[in-house]
Structures are given as C-alpha cells and as structure tokens.
C-alpha cells in the first residue's frame, strides 16, 4: 500500500493540470458559443480545402 504515497502526489499534479486547463479554456472563450464549432463543417467558407 505504500505505493499510494507516490500515486496521490501524481494525482495532485494531474488535478493542478486540469485546473489550469479549465481556467485557460474560460479565458480563451472556449465556453462562449458551444454550437458554432458543430456548424463549421456545413458553413460555406471561402478558403475551402478543395482547390
């Protein structure tokens, strides 16, 4: 069971990572418009990949 002394600190690192990721996402407006990305594939964009 002593391995838990290793696992808990690792999980803490992961948690800190997830907290940072969340704050980053909010600051970069990732949660603002949840629909727009799903429509991107359908919308007519001038710079298309077909050439």
């Amino acid at each position, binding site marked *: 069971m002593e391995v*838990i002394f290793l696992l*808990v600190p690792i999980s803490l690192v992961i948690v800190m990572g997830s*907290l940072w990721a*969340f*704050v980053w996402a*909010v600051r970069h*407006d990732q949660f603002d418009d949840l629909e727009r990305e799903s429509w991107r594939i359908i919308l007519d964009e001038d710079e298309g990949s077909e050439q």
Partner: protein
Amino acid sequence: MNTVSAANAKPASSTKSPVQSVSWIVPGIHCAACTRSIEKALQKHVDVIDVRTNLADRRVWVAYRDGGNTESVEKAIRDVGFEVVSGDESPVAGFAAERKALLSRLGVAGIGMMQVMMFALANYVASPDGLDEAYEALFRWAGLAVASPIAIFSAMPFYSNALRDLRSGQPGMDLPVSIAILSAFILSLYNTVAGAGEVYFDTVSMFAFFLLAGRYLELLARHRYQADQALMTHLLPERATLKSGDEVAVAMLRLGDEVAVSPGELIASDGVITSGSASIDESALTGESLPVFKTKGSQVFAGTTNSDGTLTVRVETEPDRFVVRELARLYRNSSTYRPAFMSLSDVVARYFVVTVLAIALLTGVGWWLAGSDRWFVIALTVLVVSCPCALSLATPVAYTIALSTLRKLGLLVANGAFLERIARVSQVFLDKTGTLTAGNLSLQEVRLENGERREHVLAMAKALQRSSHHPVARAFDDIDSSLEVIEPEVFPGRGVGGRIGDAVCFMGQVDGLTPPGPTGLWAAMTCDGHLVAWFRFEDRLRGATSELLADFKSLGKKLCVVTGDTSASGRAMLEALGPGEVHIGQKPEQKAQLVAARQSEGEYVLMVGDGVNDTLAMATADTSIAVRPADISVQDAADAVLLHSDIRIIGDVCRYGTRIRQIIRQNMMWAVAYNLLALPLAVSGFLVPWMAALGMSASSLLVVANSNRLLRPG
C-alpha cells in the same frame, strides 16, 4: 358677436425637469449593503440632489445640480470601492468579462471540491481505529494542496467584498461567508501542519462551490434583463445620408436637414416624410409587428426601419430629444424605483448580518461548553445558512422582469410606481378621441360664415394646425397652405390660435358657440372674434374598443368614458357598448374634477388617454396610461405609455399587475420563512455545512426563479 375667451387656457409646454440626471451601471453591487454604502457616500456629495439604486440590475441613478460635475460623482462611487460603467454604453461588453471571471472561479471550486471529497473519504471510511499516522498525514496534505487554490483564488470575491463592506461600515452577507471559509481553512491548515485534529477542507470547498454557483446563476439571469435594456439605446444608426449626398453623424443633424433613407435602412431621425412612401417597421419602438404605411406628411421616428420605399425625411426634432432616446431614458429611470417598504427590508438586512455573527459565536461557544466535538462545524453552519439577500432581492428582481415583459408588450412604464398602483385600480376613466377611436379624424364638412371662401378658410386651418399635435391636425395633412401663422399658440383641450396677416385667429372649441349640427366633432374658426367657419370631423371607434370594455367589465372594474367631443352620436355609440357612464363635452378641468369626485368616493382611478387635454386628469388620477401619444409632454405626465394602438392589452396589464403583487408577496414570505426555519435548525446542530451553503444559494435562486414566472405576460 361671440368673442374668443381663451384667457384662462395655458399653452402646451413640455415639462423638462430643471435638474440633470445621469445613471451608471455598477457591476460590483450584489446586495443591499452595497447599495446602501453607495447611497450614503453619494448623499454626502455636495452636487448630488437625489440618489436611487436598483439592486436587480445594478444601476445607480443620480440627480445633480445644474453645473455639477459627473466625474466627481463617479469618483465618489469609485472611492467606496466600486467600479463604474457608464449607464449609456452597452453593458454587454462588461458582461462577458464578469461572467468569465466568475466561471473560472466556479470551475476551480467544482473540480477542487470533487478531489477534496476523494481525499476526505479516506478518513470517513476508515475502521474505528482510524488511519495510520502516515496515511492520515498524506491525505491531510493532499486536501490542503487542492483546497488552497479554492480558498485563495475561488473565494477571493467574498473576501474583497467583505473588506469593502467593513470599510464602509455596511456589513453584508459576504462577511459571515468569508469568516466561515477563512476560519475553516486556517484551522485546517494549522491542524495539518501540527499533525493532529480535524481538517475541514471538504467544508471549505463545498461552501465555495455552492455559494459561487448561486452567484453565477444570479449573474446569468441579471445579464439577460440588462441586455434587454441595452438594446433600446442601440437602435440608432451612427451616421445618416443627407439628400445632398453628404454623410453626417446623427448627433450633428439639425432641424430642417433632409435625410435620405433607402429601402431596408434604419431611419436616422424623428421627422416628417417630405417625399416618397413606404411601409415602416416600427416594432423596435412599439412592439407592433405589422408595418405601418407612411407617406408624404407622415411622422416617422428614429430607430424604425424603412422596409421597402425610398424616402426623404425632414428632421423635426433635436437628436438628443428623439422619441427613442426619451423612451430609453424613461425606462431606465423607472427601473430605479423603490417602493417604500423596501427601505424597511434594507434596514433589516443590515442588522441581520451583525445578529448572525453574534448568534454564530454564541452557538459555537455553547456547544463547546456542552462538550460537543462538533462545536466548530455547527458555528460554521450558522454563519452560512441565513440569507437576508432573498429579502432584498424579492422586489427589485420582480420589478425588473415585469418592466421588461411589459416593454415587450408595447407598454413602456415611465414611473416604477405604476407596477404597484395598477393592481389597486377599481375605476377606469377612458378618453374617447384617439384612445377609443382610431384618431384618424377626417374632415367631412366645412360650413362657411361671413362670406369667406372655402380655399382661404382651409388654408388658414392648415396653417393654424401646423402647431398642433391633436388628431384634428392630421385631417389637414393633404392640404397645402402658404399662409404663415405668427405667434402660434396651442390651448390644450380647446384648440390653436395665432395671427394670420392682421387678424387674430382661433380654431377649436369656443365657449358660447354651439355647433350647427348634432352629429360629429365640430370645430369653429374665428378671426378677430368673428365666426368664420365650422369644420366637422368624423372619427371611428377602434375595433378593439368593445373587447377592451368587455374585458374591464369581467375584471370587475367600473368604467367611465369622458371626452371633449360634443357630438350626440358619439354618446349614442358609446352607450351602445355599455361602458356604464359617458360624459361628453368635457373640458380638461372637468375631466379632472370627475376623477377627483370618484376618488373622494373611495375609488382608485386609472386614467387612459392620449392627448394633451388629458394630462390634468392623468395627474389627478391615481395612475395613468397614455395611448400612442404624439407629444413628449404627455409621456412625461403618464405613469406608463402604450407605444402602439392595440388597447386590448390594457386589460391584460391589469391582470398582470395583480400577479406582480402576488409574486412579490410570495417572495417575501419565502425569504422570511426560510430564515426563521433554517437558523434554529442550524443552531441545534441538525444541519451539516453543505446543506447550509446549498440552502443559502437556493434561497435567493428560488426568489429569482419565482420572479421569472413574470416573464409570461398572460
């Protein structure tokens, strides 16, 4: 010969207030203590005459002396610790920043809370002997690591608000919350380092999460209503194209400028169409979705849309007096209204916090003396469970939502007191011309006297009517007149007068002159006291009138129709509809006297009218609605303005007013009941911390949710 007796009539003038006023949005306001400290600080300011605040949409409205400096007032607000956003700018930009900041804090608290629970679980499920020292220490430190960002970053708003409240001497609910979170965290920190004793990181996280969640949901709700208000002032385009082809800023338009409006464009100014005709979409202003057809001579308003024609519009109003701006101003001011009993609940809220702190202290000490090992947790629970915020929110939220819903129906409430008053109305007075009738008077007959010629008489009539906003003036729209009126004067309820050439002329109701015929609306024209002509007009009842009268009857309101019209057919028409009481031939003073007479019999009176000759009755009545008035001064006199002509909704508004009263009562009862119930439960130890935090947030959210029922107009 009969002479014109107009000596005791007053000319129409717009009631412009002598003081200046300005409003700001203060995003930092979130409880009654904040509004109180701002009000106190501003009342001390030398230039400030009156301060009003609205908790629900965070608005501060200040009336200040002419020549006063708004920057110093703004600074006074900043000195108390609040950031200020100009009330005229779109607050929408500020929303995004506020929301993001709160969301990141909430997310950190949520994720952190879940992790802390996992670590705390170890101790809960351990066998009765407890965990080995080493493991227990591990989980304590892990809990500390995750709870630290929560206590420091997520809960920061609570601490900064509490500090600010302390400094201004107005303690708010953030103080007990901050004490609870900080004391739990510091004690747990100490015990972790010392290696013995209980840790409360799970409590810290749950407090932070649930309370922040409550604040976040409140923020979302509030932003929705404020976005509504912001829309009103952004209906105007920035620039306009003149007939000459030049582009000019709307703010620089002058009277007489001719503006070209293409199809699909927003009309940039209030004015009159000088050429072209089109369907105009006025829904942004009036809420009415059917376009209105307008042509040369018709009045148009800034902010409406030209659907399909090409128009030239002559500017008739200064840009800062556009109807849409006036309406926005009225609407903003009405949202700062606070009914009298609110100050009582604010006082209660203030003493509440100090009381809660005292009770928490006593509870903690009491349980400690009783030997319980839960004394600290119980004290924390007491600190957090009570919520006077619900009491302060009960009314402002309901009013803000009601104002916005009514606005969507096309009723602009100018005076917040209207919302209370409309529920108490027992008697309704209705003006006939322009209110119950369509207001499109058409000229039916001209009887000449004194050897005058018809064209001359019509030209004089048109010249005089140019300065009138009465529906009678519209009947002359098709007539051109090159005559000039010198010193035109409008006599409310009587007519218009002025000098044409050498003669002093008057057109309207003249004392002592009886109309030559029994039917229709008659106006006399006199020059130098001699009767020159009679004009007969006809107006039609609106289709909606019979529905409206039936609606009022079913609501149990007594009805009375008053009108300045002297026609007997008008009376017959109305009596056929059965409103109960009809008075014709009423001058403005007589209308007001009738209102006063009913009031002395104990009735609570609503006056519905449209014209300048109703303002006296409106001021006398307990509350009033102006139906599609053409004149800004009427809008100032009435408590509420109906921007379109569908008068049927007035019955619905009365019913809505009753619902507002019900919902506010429910809110207040809940706010009081919750506190009376929750505090004893917390003191006796029946509640655990997460219940307390949940309860506090749920309590104010419940008030907001209940008020949301007012979003439905029916």
